[in-house]
């Protein structure tokens, strides 16, 4: 460990320090505004340090556990930026919910730290460390401010299933370790070359178990059962965090693992991923049709979106389309982050005055266009982005997914994408339509400044990058190039 290594670790160090600082401040002075301010300053300086390290440090291992390169810079930047937006929205959401809300912010920072670790991980130890850090903070966040049963039910569900899936991942990793004698992704790849049949099966089963565990966390079909209940029960900012930071970090580690270990060489695995993608798209979209609560709709739609992401992930199995596929998955995730935080942000803002559970019945949103035009316009933009309509970032994301599928000639997956998007339109438009209908309710909807500005920024980014994505495309493309 020398100073260069320490410099490469700067983002993690700053983030950890600010977490400790926030914890100490909470211990002495409970003040939500102060906590949030410190959290934002901490995350913002982390973001700056990520940019600094990314532009000046050489890529390489810092200890065998942590790998700092363009890929980790991109993902940790994305995750920390998402953390800032979620903490701003959380502030508005928590402000009117009584005392002792500060720890929510602390937990938020902790799970951000976990996801950043995941983005840097090149070793099963750091992988599981990050995974658990995200998971454990989420258990508490899901049940945090609500005194109702739904939050507790959701947290318990998530706790048990997430625990089981972590066990799967651990066991899978152990099986691979038994054969390969290492837990580092790249060393596993080199020693996996010459193996006897029985050892080959050990690796195969181990990888499958790891994938099953990750499938739980990413809520891919058939491991998706927990998603709608947890999304519904958790407070909206926690849901946003679960849907973006947690899934994004895990996907970053998964992609890294597959690329360095070359998981695509096992046909069985590629094929099951293929079916997981199709099933996630179809089942996610079809079940979303039948929901009447916005959070449940978004839950199923996020299952479908992870399915789209898997289309790009599977496309990377074909050598000629590998770079485009990696690029597509990173860009899609980028678009998904902004859109999902925005969509849950709207739910959070809508519910920030209510004391009990979130306002997520579609009927709450009736006539929103006439009562709160700007909020309705933001929400419509987010929904249209989820549906992949031009002028929004979601369109470029979908464009990327289709391009990756075409380049790798996976036509069956593309058929699923087209059908899924068609069904998807139906439920997104239904929400937009109900926002345009008339309502007699004139219950005022207050829009808090902090959350409102955060949403506005997200909506601006969504449209600006949807129209002019050039810089992001170039950045993502250079990162993807460095990965193969």
């Amino acid at each position, binding site marked *: 460990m020398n100073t260069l290594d320490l410099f490469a670790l700067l983002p993690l160090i700053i983030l950890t320090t600010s977490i400790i600082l926030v914890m100490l401040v909470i211990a002495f002075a409970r003040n939500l505004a102060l906590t949030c301010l410190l959290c934002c300053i901490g995350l913002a300086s982390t973001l700056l340090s990520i940019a600094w390290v990314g532009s000046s440090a050489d890529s390489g291992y810092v200890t065998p556990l942590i790998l700092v390169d363009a890929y980790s810079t991109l993902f940790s930047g994305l995750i920390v930026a998402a953390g800032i937006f979620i903490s701003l929205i959380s502030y508005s959401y928590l402000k009117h919910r009584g005392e002792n809300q500060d720890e929510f912010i602390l937990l938020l920072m902790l799970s951000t730290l976990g996801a950043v670790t995941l983005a840097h991980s090149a070793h099963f130890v750091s992988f599981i460390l990050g995974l658990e850090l995200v998971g454990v903070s989420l258990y508490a966040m899901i049940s945090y401010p609500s005194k109702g049963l739904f939050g507790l039910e959701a947290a318990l569900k998530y706790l048990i299933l997430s625990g089981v899936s972590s066990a799967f991942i651990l066991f899978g990793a152990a099986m691979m370790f038994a054969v390969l004698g290492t837990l580092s992704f790249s060393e596993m790849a080199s020693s996996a070359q010459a193996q006897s049949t029985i050892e080959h099966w050990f690796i195969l089963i181990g990888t499958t178990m790891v994938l099953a565990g990750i499938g739980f966390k990413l809520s891919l079909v058939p491991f998706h059962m927990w998603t709608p209940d947890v999304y519904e029960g958790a407070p909206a900012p926690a849901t946003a965090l679960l849907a973006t930071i947690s899934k994004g970090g895990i996907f970053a580690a998964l992609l890294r693992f597959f690329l360095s270990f070359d998981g695509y060489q096992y046909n069985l695995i590629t094929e099951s991923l293929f079916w997981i993608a199709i099933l996630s798209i179809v089942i996610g979209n079809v079940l979303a049709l039948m929901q009447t609560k916005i959070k449940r709709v978004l839950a199923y739609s996020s299952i479908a979106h992870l399915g789209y992401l898997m289309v790009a992930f599977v496309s990377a199995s074909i050598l000629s389309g590998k770079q485009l596929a990696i690029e597509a998955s990173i860009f899609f995730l980028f678009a998904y982050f902004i859109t999902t935080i925005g969509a849950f942000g709207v739910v959070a803002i809508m519910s920030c005055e209510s004391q009990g559970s979130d306002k997520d019945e579609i009927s709450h949103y009736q006539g929103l266009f006439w009562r709160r035009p700007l909020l309705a316009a933001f929400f419509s933009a987010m929904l*249209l982005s989820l549906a992949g309509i031009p*002028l929004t970032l979601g369109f470029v994301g979908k464009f990327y997914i289709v391009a990756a599928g075409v380049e790798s000639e996976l036509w069956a997956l593309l058929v699923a994408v*087209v059908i899924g*998007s*068609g069904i998807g*339109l139906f439920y997104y438009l239904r929400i937009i339509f109900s926002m*345009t209908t008339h309502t007699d309710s004139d219950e005022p909807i207050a829009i808090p400044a902090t959350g409102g500005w955060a949403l506005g920024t997200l909506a601006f980014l969504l449209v600006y990058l949807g129209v002019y994505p050039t810089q992001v495309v170039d950045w993502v493309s250079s990162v993807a190039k460095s990965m193969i």
Partner: protein
Amino acid sequence: MIMLLTILTLFIGGLVAWSIEAWNKDLPRWISVGTCIIASILIATLYFQPTQQELMLAGVSSTWYEVLSIPWIPRFGIGFVLAIDGLSLLMVSLTLFLGFIAILSSWDEIDRRPGFFQFNLMWTLAGVVGVFVALDLFLFFFFWEVMLIPMYLLIAIWGHENKAYAAMKFFLFTQVSGLIMLVAILALVLGVAGTGVPLTFNYFDLMGHQLGEGLSFWLMCGFFVAFVVKLPGFPFHTWLPDAHTQAPTAASVLLAGILLKTGAYGLIRFTVPLFPEAAADIAGVAMTLGAISIVYGALLAFAQTDFKRLVAYSSVSHMGFVLVGVFAWTELSIQGSVMQMVAHGLSTAALFMIAGALQHRLHTRDMTRMGGIWHSAPRMGAVAMFFIIASLGMPGLGNFVGEFLILLGAFSINKTITVIATMGLITGAVYGLIAMQRVFQGQKSSDPEISGIKFGDFGSREMAAMIPMIIALTWIGVYPQPVFDLVDPVLASLYELTLGTSSQWIGASQ
């Protein structure tokens, strides 16, 4: 640059109209009128550029008046490419003209959120203008989708009793077919890149590449489906009657007048020139679909009691002629198709306006409850008579020129289909005149709800919208040459591109 300014004018005009609503409820429509005037002036300058013949003499062989090309997403070779030639210019002019008509037709129909209404109107126009001038396939697809959302909102917010269903159906049909086109666009681009050309979405660079026969057939189908859904051709027409019936008048005018034309434009500009051989392979099928649309649309139109639905089905029938004309792909038949697009745009827009006026006054579209309206509204009756006669193809009016040329051009290709298509002219007369009789002639309605209404004739605002359309239709019916002068060089160059690529098209030229 003019195209970019035009599109930006429309986008910005829409935003201004929306934001000014808070101050004054009457101002937004004046903003729209102003926006359309500025856009029209911009476009009009293109008419004063050197004509094609002068350019030819000067040694310029290009049919393009103006090409704007700015790199956009270099990673994929995507550029912001706008180009305008005679065909695009004609379509853009039609768009802006009908934009005026749409604003006039909704003048006092919309009392809820007039600013947001005008915003959607302007953005639809901007999207359509973009579709007509975009020559980068990514940009084209971009505009293709952009025009859908405001149209969806127009139907969903200001539509009639069954608006949710109609708006959803409209959006789903066009979006899903659009996604199929997106897959085809990407497969085309990546396929062309596979032959060693750098990645590009530019229309000019994508033309004339040899892809495998199977691949280009499927790609062509992707484009074909998207355009035929929009056209709409049988069996993809089912969204149209619902959308038209439920839409507010202005949206119906735009939908029938110009949105349908984007499908026909796409067939002429993209499907055939990009895949001449594959298009030749399905020309027979496409012409058959066109003929079925003509007859089937006419039969269904005859069976309707809802005036708007009748006009909607007549659109299916008339656009069937366009499909036949494009896929016969002779110089005459393509000219005819373009003429039919313009004439149908004008006559159907006018008929929808009349339908809207009837509904506004009587609060029903049911023709069985109407009758004898001519007595109380002679001006309206005369205007309706004119447009019904125009749309049934009376010589001397625009629609006749279009249909006649299509039939003439298609006759050398496929006699059976041409004969069947000709039936459309007869059935057109039947349903047109039946509608005329039911609504305007005969006994006055005895329905207590209807007969109690004091029926107002067309006022000066409505006549101001109708008279230009009457003049335009008569003009292109009697003296269509200026339109041909405008589009002929373009059609000829497109036609030349496809010559020699396929035996079917060569056979066509003989």
